[in-house]
């Protein structure tokens, strides 16, 4: 047996009110989309969703990590390996990327079940994350949103078990993006929906019902990818589903999250689910893929997490469309951002535990925690007596801050702080907060983000971020 043991989600704090795109003022409660800020990408969002999913689960139990994304920034070099290192997973973890199609998130979820069912892996971490762009002021720009979803698939009873799965493959050019291009293209949307989305989704879902013996009436919630706010509703009648069975697709709040879209809606459905319920999830892209999960009693014991609901509650609307353009490097600028050679690969290699895993060291003689790991202890001057100490999951506090107006940023100032975490001082940026809300002793958590694009690549480290009210343990 294999099943979902845990789930998590990440929706960026930053929201772009859709009114700003067309130059109108943003209204409270008006439609918006979630956007990765300029220090986030598909990798950092996947890491955040994974942390939400794993909670206190021992990370050494993870045998494989599958990363599904159509917008991971590198053509050659694996994203899952960066994620595995950021999560401080063990060296023997099997890491792989899936890409190309918007349904690759569900492909990863099915393959994770296969790997566990075959006995090849105890636990597989499935991450779907996308940060796609439509051309500025085009229809797709308002449609797309950025988000990530995570599942831990393991053996035995979890919180939901796979009751059926059906994929179909279909060749047509309705949505595409060429190598090196920033923006997704679409053929005329009525063609894409009438000849692509609708018939493929119906075919996959009907086949799922037929093969599994499940009935539409048994479904509590259907988490269906949809290319716009209405298209999924048109599937209901042909499939024998009712509107109240449809999971809210979150248009106007998150947007079409690409490979993460259907997985994100499945997370939202699981958050509300009770034991015995049947959940459907279906994704679209070069065909369609439908899966059915039965919710198990274990769901009642799942520790609280942010999930979709927690992230929807915490939002920061952008004040201008220009700030969005700057963050996406879509504004005109004299020098390309980070156009120099940037980071030395050898330094990055040597410092990977500190920079990617955010792992410091505790002195085994006196216990004092250091970041990064030095040779000689600040506390007792013992030499080379260390055990690794991961800082990424700890809560710190702000000891000092400044607002820097020189460092390139879509929305200056960049907030630089010294934080104290586990008795250790860390010089680190503070994000997801407005300057006027920064104060001494502010409690912070740590998030994996991009620092800059030197050498034309994403250069990652961690940043501090205020802990939300009521979230401090």
């Amino acid at each position, binding site marked *: 047996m294999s099943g979902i043991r845990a789930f998590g989600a990440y929706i960026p704090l930053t929201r772009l009110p859709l009114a700003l795109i067309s130059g109108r003022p943003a209204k409270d409660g008006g439609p918006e989309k979630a956007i990765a800020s300029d220090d986030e990408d598909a990798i950092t969002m996947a890491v955040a969703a994974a942390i939400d999913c794993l909670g206190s689960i021992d990370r050494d139990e993870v045998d494989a990590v599958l990363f599904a994304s159509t917008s991971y920034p590198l053509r050659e070099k694996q994203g899952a390996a960066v994620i595995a290192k950021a999560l401080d997973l063990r060296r023997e973890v099997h890491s792989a990327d899936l890409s190309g199609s918007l349904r690759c998130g569900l492909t990863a979820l099915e393959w994770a079940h296969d790997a566990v069912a075959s006995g090849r892996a105890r636990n597989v971490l499935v991450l779907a994350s996308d940060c796609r762009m439509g051309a500025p002021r085009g229809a797709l720009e308002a449609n797309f949103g950025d988000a990530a979803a995570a599942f831990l698939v393991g053996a035995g009873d979890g919180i939901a078990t796979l009751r059926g799965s059906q994929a179909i493959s279909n060749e047509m050019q309705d949505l595409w993006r060429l190598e090196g291009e920033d923006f997704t293209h679409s053929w005329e949307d009525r063609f894409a929906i009438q000849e692509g989305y609708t018939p493929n989704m119906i075919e996959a879902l009907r086949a799922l019902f037929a093969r599994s013996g499940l009935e539409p009436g048994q479904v509590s919630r259907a988490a269906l990818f949809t290319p716009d706010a209405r298209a999924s509703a048109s599937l209901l009648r042909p499939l024998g589903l009712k509107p109240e069975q449809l999971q809210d697709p979150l248009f106007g709040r998150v947007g079409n999250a690409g490979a993460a879209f259907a997985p994100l809606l499945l997370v939202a459905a699981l958050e509300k689910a009770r034991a015995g319920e049947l959940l459907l999830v279906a994704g679209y892209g070069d065909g369609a893929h439908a899966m059915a999960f039965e919710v198990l009693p274990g769901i009642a014991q799942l520790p609280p997490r942010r999930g979709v609901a927690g992230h929807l509650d915490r939002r920061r609307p952008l004040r201008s469309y220009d700030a969005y353009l700057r963050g996406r490097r879509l504004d005109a600028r004299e020098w390309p951002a*980070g156009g*120099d050679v*940037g*980071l*030395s690969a050898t*330094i990055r290699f040597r*410092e990977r535990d*500190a*920079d990617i895993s955010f792992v410091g060291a505790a002195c085994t003689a006196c216990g*004092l925690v*250091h*970041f*990064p790991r030095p040779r000689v202890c*600040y*506390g007792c001057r013992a030499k080379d007596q260390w055990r690794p100490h991961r800082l990424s999951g700890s809560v710190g506090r702000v*000891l*000092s*801050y*400044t*607002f*820097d*107006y*020189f*460092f*390139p940023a879509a929305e200056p*100032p*960049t907030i*630089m702080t*010294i934080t104290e975490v586990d*008795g*250790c*001082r860390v*010089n*680190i*940026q503070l994000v997801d907060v407005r*300057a006027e809300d920064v104060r*001494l002793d502010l409690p912070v958590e740590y998030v994996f983000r991009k*620092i*800059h694009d*030197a050498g034309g690549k994403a*250069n*990652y*480290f961690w940043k501090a971020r205020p802990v939300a009210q009521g979230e401090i343990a």
Partner: protein
Amino acid sequence: MSESIRDKVAVVGVGCCKFGENWDRSREDMIVDAVYEAYEDAGIEDAPRQIDAVFCGAVYPRDGSSEVAEALKLFGKPISMVSDYCHTGTDAFRFGAFSVAAGVYDTVLVVGFDKPKDRGVSGPSINFDRVRGLPSTPAGWFSLCAARYFETYGAGREDLARIAVKNHHNGTLAPKSMLKREITVEDALNARMISWPFGLYDCAAQSDGAAAAILTRASGARSFRDDPVLVKAVTIAVSEHPQRDPNFDFLGWKPTQYAAKAAYAMAGISDPFRELDVCQVHDCFTLTELLTYEDLGLCPRGSAREHIASGTFQIGGELPVNTDGGLKTFGHPTGATGVRMIYENTLQLQGRAGPRQVPNARLALSHNIGGPPTTCGIAILGRD
């Protein structure tokens, strides 16, 4: 107990070129201007015969020591180059003084210089060669104490602005300073923000410049001048990294505290506020000068604000600080700054400082703090 440097070495000549955005002056021009003024000041007419060694300081050296040898046409001499953040000039001076005190050389030249204004940018460099600790600018490093100091002692940006106003005024009295413009507290408070709490006027003027000093054995000093200035103390200290030090309190800078303790012991000073007559301190940022008052023990911790308000450290106050405008307006060519302070203190001790003269100055301190900050250099000169 090792012997103190006190009274073994004398300064017998100083020189300084005009500091500023010296677009039409090369590094060679500035080195020659400063050194030949020092030669003249010491009455040196045959430098190859009279100078035994040269100690240089530059944070951005171009061709190492040979740049100075070529500029001065001083060949076959031992020439050393110090390059270590903002105390570079003071450290070059320290090496020169120690070499004379050790009896290795009779007379040495110390020259500090830098030319940052050929880089094509007016702000700090943006580093992209790492991911940790970014952004990383001097303004960001030196602002680390601001939030907690302000909260603990009730100080604020107005107190910093008053320091900028003082140093802008003093700069108008120094012929070789870069900026000669009075400003108001409002000007400082309303300027564009660089790195909170530092607005434009809280930051030192980055400039080009060079300064020089001639050191000789105290016993032979009067063969150069009849008013030599004696080295009472010169020391540096390297502290914990304030961004990592688990015990750092964000209320003052340890490098200065360490170096001051050692320097006062060397010079035999027990009450610096009463005994010192004039100070040149490292005002890279206004808050640095404020904290330095306290770190040097010139006033109790937390009391700087009252002394700023009452004018203690103005020319005409009880202990004038940065009589030539300091880094703020005289300029800050990094490697030159420590030597420029030696130049100013020597003029003050010899009664040659013109409208900014502190009456009857007998004991003068100069101070640099550099790095994140982690280093401090202090030199104390005296007439008696």
